[in-house]
C-alpha cells in the first residue's frame, strides 16, 4: 500500500505545470520535497486504514450492533462486561496465557540451544541454518493441517511407534480434554485458600493438555526463527571478549552463562516481543489444526471473535473481543517500542 501510494504521489507531482514546479523546487531542496511527497500518502493510508479502523472498532465495541443492520446506540461497557462473564472467553484467556508462556519459553530455549550448537564454526552451517529456518517459510495454515494429521490419535505419531515395533501409544494429543488444576478440597487448595488465593483452585486456572499439541506445532515453526536471531546476536559478540575469558581460565559453559547470555538480553527481549504478540493473536494455526478443541481446550480469543462476528453476526461483541486483544498486545508491545525508541535516541 505504502509503495503504490508513494508512486502515485510522484506521478501527481510530475503532472504539475513545469514552471510552477521549478519555482517550488527553487524554494525547497529536492530531498525535502521528496520526503514530504513520499511520506504523506502512507501517513494518510495508515491513518485511515489502521488507526481509523481501530477507532471504528472501538466505537462498535460500545454500541448495540448485534445484527447485520448497524446500530450505533451507545451502551457503554456492557459488551465488555458480558464478555468477561462469558465462560468461553474466560477459558480463552486461560488458554492464551498458557499458550503464550509455553510457546515463547520453548522457542527461546530451543532457538538458543540450536544457535549455540551452530555457533561452533561447524562444517555445513549454512545447510543446517536453512533446515531449521525452513518451517518459518510455511504458512501457519499448512503447519496446522500437517500437525493435525501427525498428532491425530489414529494416525501419525501414535502409529509411528507401533510400526517401529514399540508398544502402541494411545495418547489423545489435541483430543485429550484433561485440564490439570488444583482441585477444590485438595491439600494444596487449602494452602492456597490460607494464602488468600483460593480462587486459583478452579479449572479456569488450569493447564489444558490439548493445547500442548498446538504449542508443539507453533514451536516447530518458530524456533528456527529464534535460532537465527540468537545466531546473529552471538556473532555480534566480539570474539575478544570470549578470548579474554578463555585466557582467564573460564570454561565454555561459563563463557556462555557469564558473557554470551547477558549480552544477548536485547535479542531475547526482541524475540519475546515478536513471539508474544504473535501468540496473543494466534488464529490461523488453531483454526486449521484443532479449532475449539474438546471443551474449548484449544480455543483462543481470535477464534471466538471470528465466530461471534461472522457466524453469529454479533458485531459489537466481536469488536469488544478485538479491542481486548489489541490492549493485550499493546501491553506487550508499547513498552518495548518506547524502550527501543529511547535506545535509538541514545545511540
Amino acid at each position: 500500500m505504502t509503495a503504490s501510494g508513494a508512486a502515485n504521489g510522484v506521478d501527481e507531482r510530475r503532472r504539475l505545470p513545469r514552471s510552477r514546479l521549478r519555482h517550488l523546487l527553487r524554494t525547497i531542496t529536492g530531498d525535502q520535497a521528496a520526503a514530504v511527497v513520499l511520506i504523506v500518502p502512507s501517513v494518510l493510508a495508515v491513518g485511515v486504514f489502521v488507526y481509523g479502523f481501530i477507532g471504528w472498532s472501538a466505537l462498535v465495541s460500545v454500541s448495540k450492533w448485534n445484527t447485520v443492520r448497524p446500530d450505533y446506540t451507545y451502551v457503554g461497557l456492557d459488551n465488555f462486561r458480558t464478555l468477561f462473564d462469558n465462560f468461553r472467553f474466560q477459558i480463552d484467556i486461560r488458554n492464551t496465557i498458557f499458550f503464550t508462556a509455553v510457546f515463547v519459553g520453548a522457542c527461546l530455549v530451543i532457538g538458543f540451544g540450536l544457535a549455540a550448537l551452530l555457533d561452533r564454526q561447524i562444517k555445513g552451517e549454512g545447510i543446517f541454518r536453512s533446515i531449521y529456518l525452513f518451517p518459518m517459510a510455511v504458512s501457519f495454515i499448512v503447519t496446522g493441517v500437517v500437525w493435525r494429521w501427525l498428532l491425530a490419535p489414529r494416525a501419525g505419531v501414535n502409529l509411528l511407534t507401533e510400526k517401529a515395533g514399540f508398544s502402541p501409544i494411545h495418547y489423545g494429543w489435541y483430543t485429550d480434554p484433561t485440564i490439570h488444576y488444583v482441585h477444590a478440597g485438595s491439600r494444596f487448595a487449602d494452602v492456597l485458600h490460607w494464602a488468600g488465593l483460593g480462587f486459583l483452585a478452579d479449572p479456569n486456572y488450569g493447564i489444558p493438555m490439548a493445547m500442548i499439541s498446538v504449542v508443539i506445532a507453533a514451536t516447530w515453526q518458530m524456533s528456527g526463527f529464534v535460532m537465527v536471531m540468537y545466531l546473529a546476536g552471538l556473532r555480534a559478540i566480539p570474539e575478544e571478549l570470549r578470548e579474554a575469558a578463555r585466557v582467564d581460565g573460564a570454561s565454555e559453559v561459563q563463557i556462555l552463562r557469564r558473557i554470551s547470555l547477558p549480552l544477548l538480553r536485547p535479542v531475547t527481549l526482541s524475540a519475546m516481543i515478536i513471539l508474544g504478540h504473535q501468540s496473543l493473536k494466534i488464529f490461523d494455526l488453531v483454526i486449521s489444526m484443532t479449532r475449539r478443541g474438546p471443551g474449548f481446550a484449544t480455543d483462543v480469543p481470535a477464534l471466538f471473535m471470528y465466530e461471534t462476528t461472522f457466524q453469529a453476526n454479533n458485531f459489537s461483541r466481536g469488536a469488544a473481543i478485538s479491542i481486548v486483544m489489541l490492549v493485550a498486545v499493546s501491553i506487550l508491545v508499547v513498552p518495548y517500542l518506547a524502550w527501543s525508541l529511547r535506545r535509538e535516541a541514545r545511540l
Partner: protein
Amino acid sequence: MLAKSRVYLLVLAMAAAVLVLAVGCGDGEEEPSPTATAGTPSALTGKLEIFSWWTTGGEAAGLQKLFDLYPSACPGDVEIVNATVAGGGGAAARQVLTTRMLGGDPPGSFQVHMGHELTDTWVTTNYMEPIDALFQQEGWNSVFPQGILDIISYQGKPYSVPVNIHRANVLWYNKKVFTDNNLQPPATFDEFFTVADALKAKGITPLALGDVESFASVQLLETVLLGSLGADGYNGLWTGTTDWNGADVTAALDTFKKLLGYVNSDHSSLSWDQANDLVISGEAAMTIMGDWLHGDNKAKNFQDSGWAPSPGTTGMYDALSDTFGLPKDDPNPDAAKCWLKVAGSKAGQEAFNPLKGSICARTDCDRSLFDEYLQSAMDDWAQDAIVPSLAHGAAASPSWLADISDAVTAFVTDQDVGGLQSRLVDACKAATVCS
C-alpha cells in the same frame, strides 16, 4: 516565503494523496444496472448473479441444471453469473454475502438456509423482499407442506423458495454388524441403550461421532431433544412455549449425556465423514447424521448401509433446506423473480435434487428419479411432522445457535447436565425468546 511554499507543497501532496485514495475507493463501486427497473417480465435482459456455496460434485452439477432450465422458462437474454464462494458449509460464503449486502451490492439472488438463519439475519433487518405474490401466482402454497411454509415465513409472508430438503434426524447403521450380532436397529432410546451395551460388550463402538466441526454435536443434541420432547415440545423450545428449565428438558439432557458415553474417544479430531468411515469399516455400528451422509456412502461405495429415524423420532422430519430469496435493491429484480420461479418449479427441483442427493421441497416430484433412500425420505416428507433443524440455522437465530453451540462444546467434555441446562436457559433469554 520559504515556509509558505513548504506549507503549500504539503497541502498539495495531501490533496494528491486524498485524490489517489478517493479514486481507489471509487473503483469498487459499480453503477447500478440500467435494466434494474426497466422492461416487462417478458423481455428479461442484463446480468443475473446467483450467489451460492455450491462448488463441487453433485451440488455444482445440480446448480448447472437449474441454470440450463432458465432460458426456456424466462424468455429474454439474461446472462447468469455463477457467483460461488467455496468452503465450510457456507461459512465463507456467508461472510462474503454479509460484506456485499452491507455494502449495498446485493447479488440477484443468494443461497441461504431456510428459517431463522434467513429471517433473523436478513428479514427482520429489512434487507429482503417478501415473495408472497410469487407463491400465490405459482400455486406453491399447496405444493409445499404447511410445515415448511411456516418455517420460511415471517409475519405470514414467505421470504424464500426452498429448493431441496435434507433430513437431520437419521440413524445410519452398518447392516452387517447388526446381523452378525443379531441386533435390530433401535427405534427408542431404551432400545438404543440395550443395543449399544451389546455392541460395547463385543468391542464395537456403538455410536460414531466426529465433531471437529461443532455442528455435529449440536445436531446430535437436537435429535435427542426431538426424540425426548416430541415434535410439539421441540418446536416450543424455539417459540418460548417449552420451558428450557423444565424436568423434561433435564431428562433429555441426561439422555444426551448417556448417549455420549457410547461414542468413540477421538470424536473431537474427526469430521462427520471420518466418523462415517468408522461405521463403514465396522469399527463402529451407528452414527446419527443428516442424510447428506447417504451421498458419502455412495461415493465410498458402501452397500451395507441401513437407515432409520434417530431414536424416538419416528414420524418426525427434522428438516433443513437451501433456499433462495429476493434481496431489496436487487440489481435485476425481474430476472431474479424468474430465477426463483425456476428454483421452485417441479422441473427445477426434479433436475436439481437427484444430483444433490436431497429430496424436493415440493411433494409432487417424480419418485422414479430418486434412489431407494431418497424415496423413503419422500414418503416421510409427505406425512411426517416437520420441525426445523437447530444446527443448520432453521430453528434459532445465528447468535442463539452460537450460544447453544458453545454450551454444547463445553458439555461434551465436562458432562455437567445442570451447567448445560442453565447455559441453555441463559441462551434463550439472551435471544429474547424466553423472559
